[in-house]
């Protein structure tokens, strides 16, 4: 089968119900994390313990879907064993591939489990084919997830120059910064995606009603202030309103969702191997809605790429669950930059 025909839908599974819903609604793969800071969604109440991980793998395999495990934080030196054990457990539980960011951990996995399929996480910050080919040559990675900073033309250049499968983000929360290269969260709170698997962690968030409006603070730093008629979203650091040269605005990015439905035929034509849906922290209802829509869209685009058009009903369904109720093509579309 050519890669063009085999574009896969990769859906988020924050817990077992979400995993089952994703599989039932047509996900080719689901990705999940263990219940600790070995993955970049180390949120309280989320993720899989050994029993639910085994059950998730059993369920997915019984329905012909595969399970990917995100081990995509950077092992902190004094706790290395935790990440190493996570790789060992992934193999034991029958996980189909591990998604890694740390070169040291990749070395461990490649050496000890030569048959384990390795994916380079978006947290690995590989934005060009020389970087991706580095991981291919040294660790035999099979797939790389590209940070959400390249234009579609730049992605195509990558695809043409690497034997590694390329996975792109298609929908969900949008990181404006190159993943794996953003320490804004630790600058404010002491914890970042790289070191702790969190960004703008909930425990550092404070909401306060004041005479000036509803204020959101991260470790005491004012991220935004909302008027009566404004929707207040989760206070992610880079999506607050700030003051630059006496002008107050979304200086880094608006609260918005990435949505690339309209680019699907182009992505298929250039040989993208997989589309990833963001949102392991979101509800099973979100996973259900998004999986359904993207399954329909991918099937439609594969069936008849030339006559493919985005169904307005799909957009309506996605808009209901989108962050900030706004969509963007992000960096895939050059003017965003």
């Amino acid at each position: 089968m050519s890669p063009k025909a085999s574009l896969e839908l990769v859906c988020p599974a924050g817990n077992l119900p979400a995993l089952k819903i994703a599989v039932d609604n047509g996900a080719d793969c689901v990705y999940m994390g263990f219940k600790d800071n070995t993955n970049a969604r180390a949120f309280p109440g989320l993720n899989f313990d050994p029993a639910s991980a085994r059950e998730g793998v059993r369920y997915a395999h019984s329905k012909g879907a595969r399970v990917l495990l995100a081990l995509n934080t950077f092992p902190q030196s004094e706790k290395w064993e935790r990440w190493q054990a996570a790789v060992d457990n992934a193999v034991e539980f029958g996980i189909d591939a591990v998604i890694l960011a740390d070169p040291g951990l990749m070395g461990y996995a490649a050496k000890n489990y030569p048959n384990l399929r390795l994916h380079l996480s978006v947290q690995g910050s590989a934005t060009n084919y020389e970087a991706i080919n580095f991981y291919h040559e040294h660790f035999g990675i099979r797939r790389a997830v590209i940070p959400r900073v390249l234009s579609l033309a730049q992605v195509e250049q990558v695809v043409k120059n690497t034997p590694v499968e390329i996975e792109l983000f298609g929908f969900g929360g949008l990181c404006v910064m190159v993943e794996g290269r953003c320490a804004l969260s630790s600058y404010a709170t002491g914890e970042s995606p790289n070191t702790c698997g969190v960004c703008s962690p909930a425990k550092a968030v404070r909401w306060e009603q004041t005479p000036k409006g509803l204020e959101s603070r991260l470790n005491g730093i004012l991220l935004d202030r909302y008027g009566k008629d404004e929707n207040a979203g989760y206070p992610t650091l880079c999506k607050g309103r700030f003051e630059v040269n006496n002008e107050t605005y979304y200086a880094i990015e608006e609260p918005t969702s990435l949505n690339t439905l309209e680019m699907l035929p182009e992505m298929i034509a250039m040989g993208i191997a997989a589309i990833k849906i963001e949102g392991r922290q979101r509800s099973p209802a979100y996973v259900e809605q998004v999986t359904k829509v993207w399954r329909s869209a991918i099937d439609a685009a594969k069936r008849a790429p030339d006559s493919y058009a985005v169904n307005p009903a799909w957009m309506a369904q996605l808009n209901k669950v989108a962050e900030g109720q706004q969509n963007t093509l992000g960096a895939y579309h050059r003017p965003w930059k």
Partner: protein
Amino acid sequence: MKLALGPILYYWERETTFSFYDEIAASPVDIVYLGETVCSRRHTLRTEDWLEIADKLAAAGKEVVLSSQALIESESDLMTLRRIVSNGKFMVEANDMGAVHLLAAAKLPFVAGPHINTYNPQTLALLADLGAKRWVMPVEMSRDALVHMQAARPAGMETEVFAYGRLPLAFSARCFTARHHNLPKDDCQFRCMDYKNGLTLNTREGQPFLALNGTQTQSASVYNLIGELDAMRETGVDVARVSPQAFFTAKILKLFREVMDNRLPAQSAMQQMTKLMPAQACDGYWHGRPGIEQSYLAAAEDAA
């Protein structure tokens, strides 16, 4: 301990950059990192110009290292990277794994820069095998974590710490300076040249928080570890890095040198620096705290 000057992170006029390095040639710095690491659209200096400055600094007795761009996206970015890697004369600081790939393939020694995510001894050992001779600690790493790294450091590997300057915290494909001026990145009019130390971003209650520097986002506060040089020496740090700023860089280097050589108490240096820094100091990361926090002499300042 050696003193290094990091690459200029801002976009300055050509003449400013040349005269800056004339002053640096006469300053008490041991190692100078050169090149454009932030944005490939910046072009007042081409690779040949950087090589010319490199020769001058080498003639003045400095160890010169050419720094590669952190975010490499396009084929032309890769062409620039290949030119730097094959310069034939100076060591290269790799700031992404694409650079590591090319340097390792060419069997060239290199510096693993601050934008390579070296968070554990296993990764450091891998980099050593690939030819790294020095590594620069990620800016968010604490002293305690560094102690673990140092205990397992490969033979012959030097350790460098970003010890002064607005912290390079994040990279994006988007240009936040152009965004501030409502300009598309492709027609940015090089507005970052107007902000020689970056463009400060404040919270809505006026707290300086970050600094916009084109596609790079920095801390508004100036990371300053001059009070920690003894602790760095105890940890076996070989090199302390000062990041260039538009004014007084040579004075900052001189103060670091004097404290390193035990000719000036760190407290006096810190007091002199308050007039030389473009913003207030921070040192939280070193202490395993939020980076924005400041502990050294903070109590004394509060009392004053």
